[in-house]
Structures are given as structure tokens and as C-alpha cells.
């Protein structure tokens, strides 16, 4: 597996950072092909079968070139050979509808998450809502309390925007003392990115006539949890959206069909699904999910509350945990970065555990509060390497190292973990998730810090 492979051009290229990181424009300049990182080596079979005439049917003449293909379909599904590109669900043992499912970020490319792979967080299952019976009530400190049917809302002027939605509890395994062994998406995949289309919340709030006293908006879902939470009026008016469509089609049931809130860049729990009610108030309701949960306990025993913005974060999705580099040579390191405060300004990559860094190419489009795809070429020499990515957003905020985050916040905050992720490539080409801070040497136990998602 470690045979040296001749890489044309690479010998004449100067590395831009330690341990084989090359100029990010390499692929653009030369159009070189590069190795594909695989989860498991799967050689292409030389011979599939023989056809009726006993002619060899091989990769030059595969069977699907000798028979008509499948007929048309009314709604396409992924190839059967992609059946491991799936969400990873985990729920409360007594309540099957209370839990999460992670997006397989390590299996995806680009910045748009397919609708069927968008992460889920439900408190009591996915309601199957008949849109003809669903209504939105806007009331409270408004001059014209009103009901809106879905049919009504579909007639309103709409806008589209691409943005991520990230659960406040995403990546919480990072607080644990030993590194998670899960694939990248099943560790960090409580975040997804879609094109959302719907009615600007401000349009309806203006029609309802929000009074000057109204500083908060209490949103409520029509699920079996009747999930409720308080949203600052300022944010609702600024860029809140009543989303009806996701990636061009109507919302999926598990993403809030027929109506959900989108609050770009703010933690997922505020983006209430199955939205049925918005009550304008002068103060927050202090709901369970803004007091008992989605607050972050600090080392001094105080807890951070109303920590709405998801701070800048990035991770390398390929190569990433449990992947396997078949041989030394040229690889493309790629991954995702995002910030709830705006655009990603730069993503730096290190292949030597943070000793040196090189700037990755940001794939266009680079959008505010959206996934941003980054790429950089890397010449793996077959020796152990430690890969990291570090995002900086347009406000100048830099994604922190893990030890810095823990020094600031302790271990019991559960929510808002956004530290730099470290992947170790060993001599066999196997990629592992590691900590390279003091937990590596100090930790002997295998303690999970907190309970799940009840």
C-alpha cells in the first residue's frame, strides 16, 4: 500500500506549509487528477459476467450497455450503490421520537445538503400535518391579530436564501475527555445547509402591526411537544423567514412541513418547525428550551443564556475520521466552514498539527451564514500527519483550539462547541480523530460528559 507513486509536476511545486501542503491554486492551474479518499478500498471487478453470445462483458463493455435501462420515475432516488449515504439517528430509549439524526457530512460535497439528509432534532416525533388544516396565528402585542392559512402564505411575495441551520448541541462529543470515534458527519453533522424560500417574517409582522412594546416573539410548533421558544423581535424583523420551500421543493415533514421559521446563523432550536403561532411580547417566556436546556453551564456554576449566534467553525470532511488513504501521493483536502456572524473570510489548513498553516481555496459562492466549501492540495508522503482546519469569519473571529475553548467554557456547557477539529493520518493511511491538547496525556477515563437530548 505504501508504494511510491510518481506524481507528475508535484516535484517541481514548492510546498506552502509543512508536511506537504501545496499551493491552493494547484488544481486550478494544472488540472491534475488526484487520489480519491475512500472509506474502504473497493477494486473495480475486471469481469462482470458473460452475455448470451458468450462475449466478454467487462468494464469496457458493461452489462448496462447491453440492455435497456430502467423506465422513468416520478421522484428520483439515489443510486442503490450509495445506500450508506444516510443520516445517523439516535433517540431516547423510551421515546423514539425524541432525539437527533446526524447529516453524513463526510459523504457529501458542495454546500447544499440534500433534503432527505438534512439533520433532525425532534422533541416528540415528526407530525404529519395536513396543510389544509394548518394555520399560523400572529397575536400578542400587535394591532391586528390574524390567522394565515398555508394557501394564503403561498400567495405572499417570497425570497430565497442559502443558509445553514445548526443545532446548538452540534459537536457536543468534543467536550468529552476522549475523542469520538465516529465519522465526521456523525460527530459534527447536526448542521446542514439549504436554499430556503419563503415569506419574509417582517412582511407579516408589519401587516399584523407590531407595537413598540413588542421586543420578543414567542414561536410555537404544532408538533406533539408544542415546542416553544423566545426570539428577539430585532432578529425576526431583520432576516427572519417563514420558510415554505427547501432546495426548491416544499419542506419535508421532518424539516417542518408545511411551515417553519428560518433565522439565519442562529441556533437551530430557534428555527421552529411546524410553526403555528407567533406571540409578540415584551419579555421572553422562559421556556424549558431556553432555561433548562440550550443554556451553557460555566465552570463557576453560572450559565450562559440566550447564546443565539452559532460562532465560526470548520472541519475537514475529506480525509476525515475512519477514512483510508490507499497510498502516498496527491490528495485534495476539502471541508466546510460556516459562521453565524457572516461570511467566512479564510480557512487555514495545517498538516503538521498546527506548526504551520496554509490558506485553502474558498469555493464560490461564499455566502453569509452559509456553508463555505474549502479545498487545498496535499502531497502525503506516507508518514504520520496531523490535519487541522481553522476558520476566520468576516468579523475577524478565529475558530479556537480545543484547549482554549475548554479553558474558557469548562466542560459542562454541552452547547456551542466550535473548536478546531484534528484528524491524524497514521502510517497505514488510516485517519483517526484525536485530541492534541493536554487531554491526550491527562485523560485515562472514558467519560461522557452529559446526557443526551431529552
Amino acid at each position, binding site marked *: 500500500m505504501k508504494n511510491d507513486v510518481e506524481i507528475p509536476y508535484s516535484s517541481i511545486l514548492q510546498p506552502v506549509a509543512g508536511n506537504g501542503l501545496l499551493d491552493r491554486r494547484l488544481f486550478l492551474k494544472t488540472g491534475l487528477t488526484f487520489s480519491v479518499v475512500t472509506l474502504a478500498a473497493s477494486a473495480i471487478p475486471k469481469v462482470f459476467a458473460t452475455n448470451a453470445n458468450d462475449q466478454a462483458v467487462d468494464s469496457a463493455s458493461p452489462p448496462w450497455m447491453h440492455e435497456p435501462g430502467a423506465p422513468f420515475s416520478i421522484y428520483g432516488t439515489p443510486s442503490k450503490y450509495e445506500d450508506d449515504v444516510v443520516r445517523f439517528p439516535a433517540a431516547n430509549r423510551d*421515546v423514539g421520537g425524541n432525539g437527533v439524526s446526524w447529516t453524513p457530512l463526510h459523504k457529501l460535497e458542495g454546500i447544499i445538503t440534500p433534503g432527505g439528509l438534512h439533520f433532525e432534532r425532534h422533541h416528540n416525533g415528526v407530525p404529519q400535518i395536513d396543510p389544509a388544516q394548518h394555520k399560523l396565528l*400572529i397575536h400578542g402585542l400587535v394591532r391586528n*391579530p390574524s390567522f394565515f392559512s398555508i394557501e394564503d402564505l403561498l400567495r405572499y411575495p417570497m425570497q430565497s436564501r442559502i443558509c445553514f441551520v445548526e443545532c446548538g448541541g452540534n459537536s457536543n462529543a468534543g467536550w468529552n475527555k476522549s475523542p469520538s470515534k465516529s465519522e465526521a458527519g456523525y460527530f459534527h453533522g447536526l448542521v446542514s445547509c439549504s436554499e430556503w424560500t419563503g415569506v419574509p417574517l417582517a412582511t407579516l409582522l408589519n401587516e399584523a402591526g407590531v407595537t413598540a412594546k413588542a421586543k420578543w416573539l414567542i414561536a410555537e410548533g404544532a408538533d406533539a411537544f408544542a415546542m416553544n421558544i423566545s426570539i428577539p423581535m430585532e432578529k425576526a424583523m431583520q432576516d427572519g423567514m417563514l420558510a415554505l420551500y427547501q432546495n426548491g421543493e416544499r419542506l419535508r415533514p421532518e424539516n417542518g412541513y408545511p411551515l417553519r421559521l428560518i433565522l439565519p446563523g442562529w441556533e437551530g432550536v430557534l428555527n421552529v418547525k411546524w410553526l403555528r403561532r407567533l406571540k409578540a411580547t415584551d419579555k421572553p417566556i422562559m421556556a424549558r428550551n431556553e*432555561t*433548562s436546556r440550550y443554556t451553557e453551564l460555566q465552570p463557576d456554576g453560572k*450559565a450562559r443564556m*440566550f447564546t443565539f449566534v452559532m460562532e465560526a467553525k470548520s472541519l475537514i470532511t475529506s480525509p476525515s475520521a475512519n477514512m483510508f488513504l490507499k497510498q502516498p501521493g496527491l490528495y485534495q483536502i476539502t471541508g466546510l466552514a460556516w459562521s453565524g456572524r457572516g461570511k467566512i473570510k479564510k480557512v487555514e489548513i495545517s498538516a503538521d498539527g498546527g506548526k504551520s498553516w496554509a490558506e485553502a481555496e474558498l469555493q464560490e459562492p461564499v455566502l453569509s451564514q452559509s456553508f463555505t466549501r474549502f479545498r487545498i492540495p496535499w502531497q502525503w508522503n506516507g508518514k504520520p500527519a496531523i490535519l487541522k482546519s481553522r476558520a476566520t469569519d468576516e468579523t475577524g473571529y478565529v475558530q479556537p483550539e480545543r484547549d482554549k475553548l475548554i479553558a474558557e467554557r469548562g466542560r459542562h456547557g454541552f452547547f456551542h462547541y466550535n473548536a478546531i477539529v484534528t484528524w491524524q493520518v497514521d502510517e497505514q493511511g488510516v485517519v483517526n480523530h484525536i485530541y492534541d491538547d493536554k487531554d491526550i496525556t491527562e485523560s485515562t477515563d472514558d467519560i461522557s460528559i452529559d446526557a443526551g437530548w431529552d
Partner: protein
Amino acid sequence: MIRTPLKINFPPPGWGTPARMQAVERRRMPKPRVGVKSLIREINFSSNETLPPPSHPLPPREGEVVVEGRGPGKNLLLVLLLFTFINISYANPPQGPNLGQSATPEEIAHWDISVMPDGEGLPEGKGTALAGKPIYEKHCVACHGPEGVGGSADALAGAKMALNSDYPEQTIGSYWPYATTIFDMTRRSMPIIAPGTLTNNEVYAVTAYLLYLNNIIGENDEMNAETLPKVQMPNRDGFINVYEQENKKK
């Protein structure tokens, strides 16, 4: 082609039992009973469908503040006066077709189940811990454990480790800042297999029982719309409002 099944790491990261609980001998809980009562919180979706559509021939123009009756221009002077002191400085969103159907106070009362920390929204009714114990043991114990400890769901009582310790325990008594939150959540979300089926008296009683389990009230103290908001929660001042802090910096 032989495909290997998806590797499942279970439990997944961050999804486990708190270390402190692993040492606790768990009792087998009886499975909850399903569908014992009919829904009392019925939602009448079609109640206003016979109302006439609102009459306002012209939508308000950009920047105009609509005062009453949802039509612009009727009281332009008042509108302009109001505009001088109502601070609505929102970006210009697209103009909508104004299709909302007016909601009557009765309809709103029927829909609105929000309970605020000052007690606004609390319904009539009452209950004590003594009355709440059997209700808890019937509807809640399966997931939350006897006396709020040791279930698969949130621990509700019995915190021994302090919030600033290595294994902090976040229960109602040690963590929750407002007693009204217990009522609001229990009424809307619980019991999890049949949410919205408890009467207001039952919700008051369960709320009282949970406060009693956390040594916050006595077993005969009555919880109602007057008394519940006055309950002083031990961790009432344990929170930092990060949003407010950031706004001040701005």
C-alpha cells in the same frame, strides 16, 4: 457487489448516560399506558372560516404605520403622529397582499397556551404536592424515575453535586430559574405519549409535586395562578443574558 452494512457506533457521541448515573442501580420502569384519556386541548382550526374577509382596498405603503382597522389613510394625521414616537425601524420588506383573517379574543384565548414567568397566561385551577404524587407516578415515573431521579429523561430532582463541581447536576431544584416553566412545559408537552391530556388541576398538582421533591415548597402548599409565579427558585440568578450583553456592547 457485496456491501458491508453501515457501521453503527452505539451509543453515539454525546448520547449516553451521565457518568454519575452509571453507578446507580436502575430499576425497571413499568411501560407507560397509552391513550387513557381523550384530548382536552382541542384545536378548532376552522372556527373562523366563516368570517368575512377584512375590507381594506389598498395595502399600506412602504414606511406607513397601520394603526387600526388595517386600512391606511383613514386617519393619516394620527398615523403620522404615531410614527414620530413608535420606533419601528425595520428594513423594507416586500409588501404583502394582507390576507390575514382577523382573530377574535375568544379564538386567541383558545390557541394561546403560553405561560409567562410573571404568571401571565396561567389558567384557573390549583393543586398540591400531595395530589400530584399519584399523577406523577401514573404519567411521569416511567421516563423520569421515582421522585424525579434515575429515568431515561431529564433528572427532575435529587441534585447532590453542585453546579460548579466536576459532575454538576442540573435539575429543577438546582438549575431551573422559573417555576412557571414547569407548568408551561408540562401542560404543552407532557406526558410525552399523550401530551395535552392533563387537566389544569393535574398540571398544577404535578408542578407542586416537582417543587416539593426539590424541597422548594411543602407538600400541602397550594399552587395556583397566584402562588406559582411567586415561588423563589434557588438558581433564579444563575444565568448570564449573553444576548443582552452583546447588545450593550453594540
